[in-house]
């Protein structure tokens, strides 16, 4: 192994060796030459040496400047950064990977397989070539890959898919060849290597075959990836016994949906194992909060479970961001430690965006207040699964106001009642405006779009209409659907829409004092938090849907 490492070292750093030898040779020649000179000429040469060095340095500086400004310090096909690091230096252990227990188990198995190839081969098994990780951004795919590298102790070669994409045709393929060349060298030296390609969709998306005989640059990069992965397989088949340079595992990670990745990549023999990394569960979020809170000073009385519940559908990266943002807010407020309010503000800032005041006319402001109050009352009184976290008529991003619902619990399915409640909540802004002003504004457009989408899906896809139309009618080509069927389905959609609207209108008429109160409160205070909202409802003797 040592001789192999030495050979690898020489192979990788041969340019440096050559330069070093050349320098030593020149040094010897220079000394020899100087010694053959008489002392006067030697002194003249020595006297000129600092100036010569200065001139050489000046020339070198000009060259480096031009080289950096023209080529960014590298040739077109060279990697833009140091991409290799030894596994143990990555230093991310299983214990550092929080949550994702099932995925961790799978990964541990993969590590065992990588480490114990001989055992796999002895029983005639095929060595794993690749692992593909799917999942939303910020869920720890890269982190997991690093943990795999640490546990295997193998060198870790990491590149992002976008680094293969360049203006020039062929550069991506060339870089891919270089990447695998490097990986093979490292595998030879260290007995194996892990190649990690982040954002694989940049090179691994479904290939496009042009009718004009040409292919896109991405195709050639992906073809090269396929060829390299097949090459690993071939090496294994020909040799018959385990060769170190074949011990390469490619780990790909992407946020893109599975169907966007080319099937050729997903087939066994390439990325043999597919891992789906999901957003963290409530328990995982608690652990993640504990982990990140361990790095900051915070009020120990904070209920971490409550924070975890407030951050439904948040990725580990989002949680890290919440903690970072909360720390910044606490610093700005000159607090010694982070309080719960800082976390609330941080979550709000991340979720809703930064406030930016727009000057509305009193009429516009009133209309927005009634619109949001409609959403608020309907959500609170009719929605079976969501709470109102906050209501606001302060402009954020492109909205003039917002009611921020918060799921009470993590649900992975949506019932008919939940979907109907969603439609009612979306329509309630319209109903409130109409009730108060007997007219409506274009602020309802976004709500209508969402409500229509849900109602349409309930009838056309989910079999939730009263008329009993079952099946996914969107799966049938539109040309094969009769007009009468389409009409009936659309009528059912309309029925849902209208019945929901009617129910909301009745609710708001019935709760008119409450509507007026919330609108007034919002106009005066601009923002209402959960506790304030809850207090007003209790003042009017209203109970939450869930509580009811």
């Amino acid at each position: 192994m040592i001789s192999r490492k030495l050979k690898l070292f020489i192979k990788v750093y041969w340019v440096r060796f050559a330069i070093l030898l050349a320098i030593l040779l020149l040094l010897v020649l220079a000394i020899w030459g100087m010694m053959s000179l008489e002392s006067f000429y030697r002194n003249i040469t020595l006297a000129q040496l600092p100036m010569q060095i200065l001139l050489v340095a000046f020339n070198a500086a000009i060259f480096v400047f031009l080289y950096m400004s023209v080529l960014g310090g590298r040739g077109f096909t060279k990697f833009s950064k140091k991409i290799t690091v030894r596994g143990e230096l990555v230093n991310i252990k299983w214990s550092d990977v929080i949550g994702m227990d099932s995925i961790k188990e799978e990964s541990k198995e993969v590590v065992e397989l990588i480490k114990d190839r001989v055992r796999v081969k002895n029983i005639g098994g095929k060595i794993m070539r690749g692992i593909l990780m799917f999942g939303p951004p910020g869920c720890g795919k890269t982190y997991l890959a690093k943990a795999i590298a640490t546990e295997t102790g193998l060198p870790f070669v990491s590149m992002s898919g976008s680094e293969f994409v360049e203006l020039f045709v062929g550069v991506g393929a060339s870089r891919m060849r270089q990447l695998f060349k490097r990986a093979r060298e490292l595998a030879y030296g260290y007995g194996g290597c892990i190649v990690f390609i982040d954002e694989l969709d940049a090179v691994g998306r479904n290939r496009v075959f042009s009718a004009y005989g040409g292919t896109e640059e991405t195709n050639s990069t992906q073809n090269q990836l396929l060829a390299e992965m097949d090459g690993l397989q071939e090496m294994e088949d020909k040799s018959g016994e385990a060769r170190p340079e074949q011990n390469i595992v490619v780990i790909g990670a992407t946020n893109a949906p599975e169907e966007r990745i080319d099937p050729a990549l997903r087939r066994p023999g390439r990325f043999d194992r597919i891992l789906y990394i999901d957003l963290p569960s409530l328990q995982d979020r608690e652990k993640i909060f504990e982990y990140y809170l361990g790095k900051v000073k915070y009020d120990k009385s904070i209920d971490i479970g409550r924070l975890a519940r407030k951050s439904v559908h948040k990725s580990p990266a989002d949680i890290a961001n919440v903690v970072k943002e909360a720390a910044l807010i606490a610093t700005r407020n000159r607090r010694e430690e982070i309080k719960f309010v800082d976390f609330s503000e941080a979550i709000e800032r991340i979720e809703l965006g930064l406030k930016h005041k727009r000057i509305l006319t009193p009429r516009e402001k009133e209309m927005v207040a009634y619109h949001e109050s409609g959403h608020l009352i309907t959500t609170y009184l009719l929605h079976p699964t969501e709470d109102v976290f906050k209501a606001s008529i302060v402009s954020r991003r492109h909205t003039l106001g917002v009611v921020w619902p918060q799921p009470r619990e993590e649900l992975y399915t949506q019932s008919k009642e939940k979907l109907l409640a969603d439609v009612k909540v979306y329509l309630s802004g319209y109903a409130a405006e109409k009730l108060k002003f007997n007219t409506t504004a274009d602020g309802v457009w976004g709500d209508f779009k969402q409500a229509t989408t849900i109602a349409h899906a309930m009838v056309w896809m989910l079999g939730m209409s009263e008329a009993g139309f079952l099946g996914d009618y969107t799966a049938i080509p539109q040309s094969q659907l009769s007009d009468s069927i389409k009409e009936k389905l659309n009528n059912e959609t309309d029925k849902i829409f209208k019945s929901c609207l009617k129910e909301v209108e009745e609710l708001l008429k019935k709760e008119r004092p409450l509507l007026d109160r919330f609108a007034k409160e919002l106009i005066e205070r601009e923002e209402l938090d959960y506790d304030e909202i809850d207090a007003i409802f209790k003042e009017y003797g209203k109970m939450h849907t869930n509580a009811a």
Partner: protein
Amino acid sequence: MLSSKNTARCIRMRRKFFLLLVTDYWLLVTFIGCGPSYPETRVKESIIKICKKEYGLDVKVATVGKTITIYLPLTQLIDFTFAITKEASEKINDVILTAARVTLSTDAKVDFYCIIAHDVRIPEIQIVIVKYVDDVKRFLLNDISRGEYSKRMLVDIRLSPQAQKERAIKDVFSKMKLDEKWEDQVMNEFFRAEPTGLGEMGYWEGRFYIKDVTLAEFLAEQTANRIKMEFKEDRFLSDNFLMKSAKGTYVSKEDERYFRFDVSAAPNGEAVEMSAQELQNKVNQAALRIAYQVLHGYRFEDFNYVLVVDITDDRATKVLKEDLKNFRSKNAKLDGAMEVEVY
């Protein structure tokens, strides 16, 4: 992907390696650059060895103070036209080069080197070349031009003064019919002394007649040579004057130090219409200009004044050191000059 800790370590290692390389280089270069190629104790041997080994020349070397003198016997120094032969010229150049190499690369304190080339057929005739080591250095470092460098070299073809003296004495001895054994003793006691000026330097009958050349007398001689040359090269001076002689001496007394240039330049028949005084002024101006150029060129300060003597009437023009700079241009007036009488 490298952690910052590793990157820092890597940078530190590279820096150490680079420093080691540079230090080694400087140490080696400094060590080999320290020692002189021709140590003080082996200067003479080195010149003899180089001349013999590289040019096949047998030379003799003697040193007095900070002056090295090399004697080069030649079989054919001059031809029938009394011009230096090509072979002799090449050999003299070889010896000059050897002397330059050794004097430049030695730790011995050498200011001047002198080459005395001698025709073995006619030993009375000799060429004496004197060079200032600092001039050689400046020429090699392109601090002075080739033309200036050649002007700074003293070259003199002359009859050996010692030979003339001894011949005359021997003539007297033969007329007096003295015993030969007494002849040599008398010669040694009374007529074989060290030279007092540059013009008396030479080699005669196996003995060097040399002195430690000083910069002042070297400059005086050089200035006189240049004045002679100026009267040949300058059109006005060559058309109107006939240069008879120019002699330079440096006089160092207790209370004063000065350069004295005895110039004898007579107007020729076709001279422009000028008064005798005006013509003499032209001579004085030329001599003083050359003196200024030489003394300023060497940054020589150890003198109080310059005296240009017209040897035909023993009248002299005296210019103080601080006024000498007024004579840098050809059209300088003799405003700062004083007319004095010399004896």
